[in-house]
């Protein structure tokens, strides 16, 4: 398959737990898919009746697999609606347009030891990590913080690995993050993927324990970050005014207006969508712009950031 986008076909849909749906996707033309490494994500175009969503999901299939890609999608009640679409509408045989795989969360392969901390559905990138480490033999440990009832859901990917531990919110089962981070050998790299509050807690604990920042890696969920109060944006170069609803991102609204905006992760991490801001004040929610860039107020990442007040004018 070549081209800017890929056409996929849904080969299997499995509800692995309440609110967790597993999709197996193959190339619609029966050919091979591009290979993707551990930690990769793919952006899917979800064509609903009333609107289109573009959501990025981590691949949980074996790294390098070319016959099929797999994703696991949690239904998020308060989300923009893409996950609900996958849970309610997608069926075997449906075709989906997807982007090429991107990877902003690859494991550091010179690491002596890989320490992974997952919160809830943040486990998905680590399922491909585990497949890689199982193949390369790299030392690793995965700590999963989830609801007690979901700890067996990922069994098919985890096997009975002694390197995987589950933690949940009950006495004796909570993860002691500072204690875990204080006892790691030199040469360890830390990866965290979970809700924002957990990511922040882990990053702060790592800094307090003396971890060099270059050994700490974080992936945020994008979709939950992008909603908020409705506002209006004016695309100066296109001469188009767009209304951004409370349940969609600025990037969604720009795409809905028919303006092509470059993007990759849709989660405020990669920096591909960064756009000059000509007027207005942004509420920055990305993890890419520096403090100086935010203070200068001349750039915005429309995939997650919104207007703090009033109208935004973008050079787009």
């Amino acid at each position, binding site marked *: 398959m070549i081209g800017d986008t890929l056409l996929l076909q849904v080969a299997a849909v499995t509800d692995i737990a309440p609110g967790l749906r597993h999709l197996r996707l193959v190339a619609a033309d029966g050919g091979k898919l591009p290979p993707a490494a551990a930690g990769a994500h793919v952006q899917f175009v979800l064509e609903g009746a009333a609107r289109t969503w573009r959501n990025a999901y981590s691949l949980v299939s074996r790294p390098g697999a070319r016959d099929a890609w797999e994703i696991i999608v949690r239904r998020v009640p308060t989300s923009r609606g893409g996950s609900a679409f996958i849970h309610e509408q997608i069926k075997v045989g449906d075709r989906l347009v997807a982007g090429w795989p991107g990877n902003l969360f690859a494991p550091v392969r010179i690491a002596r030891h890989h320490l992974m901390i997952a919160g809830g559905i943040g486990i998905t990138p680590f399922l491909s990590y585990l497949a890689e480490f199982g193949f390369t033999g790299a030392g690793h440990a995965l700590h999963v913080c989830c609801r007690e009832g979901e700890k067996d859901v990922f069994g098919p990917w985890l096997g009975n690995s002694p390197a995987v531990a589950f933690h949940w919110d009950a006495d004796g089962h909570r993860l002691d993050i500072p204690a875990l981070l204080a006892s790691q050998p*030199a*040469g360890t790299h830390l990866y965290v993927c979970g809700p924002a509050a957990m990511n922040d807690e882990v990053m702060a604990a790592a800094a307090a324990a003396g*971890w060099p920042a270059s050994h700490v890696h974080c992936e945020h969920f994008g979709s939950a970050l992008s909603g908020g109060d409705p506002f209006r944006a004016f695309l100066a170069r296109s001469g188009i005014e767009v209304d951004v609803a409370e349940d969609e991102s600025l990037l969604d609204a720009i795409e809905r207006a028919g303006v092509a905006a470059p993007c990759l992760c849709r989660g405020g991490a990669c920096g591909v969508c960064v756009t000059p801001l000509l007027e207005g004040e942004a509420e920055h929610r990305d993890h890419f712009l520096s403090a100086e860039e935010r203070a200068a107020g001349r750039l915005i990442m429309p995939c997650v950031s919104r207007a703090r007040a009033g109208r935004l004018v973008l050079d787009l």
Partner: protein
Amino acid sequence: MLHSDIKSRPVYRALEPDLSAAGHLLVIETATLQPGGLASLADAFAPVAAKLHTWLVGEAQAVPGLGKPWHLPAVADVVDALACATRGYGIGDRLYVQGTEPFLWSVATAAAIVGFGPDQIRLCHAGSLQRRVWCTHCHGFTEPVTTNVVPCAGCGRHLLVRDHFSRRLGAFMGVMVDTEAPGEVPAIEEVFA
């Protein structure tokens, strides 16, 4: 003092403790210390004195403030001590090294082998500009080198000592200087005293 036109050369800075670190290991080549040098290091590391270990390599009189230093005869003993450490080093630990360039990189390389990442290691050049030279022909090392041209300790070729530095080897590149005109060796000058 370590001026070079090659931008990839390592940059060395005065040592100061990383206050967020869990443990601190300070390794000093004592022959490179200026009078009062240990005392000023003790001052700099006073905020982390409770978590500081000091290794003094070579002759030295200990000073207050660096804890109870461990005395080691030579850099080879530092390399062995790092490799044989019974207590593993942690991701929160920091290594600080002061000495000549071959010393710095012998210690840094040994530390990397036991897992220290580049951001856990701070290096401060002191003392002679002497270099370790790696022969591009026989892959042997020659040190200490203080001249612009040096006979290779491995193959005997006269090597021009270049400014190209390898962090992996902790050495500068040496290439045969009289390949085009055998026997025509430029004047040998002491440039890395």
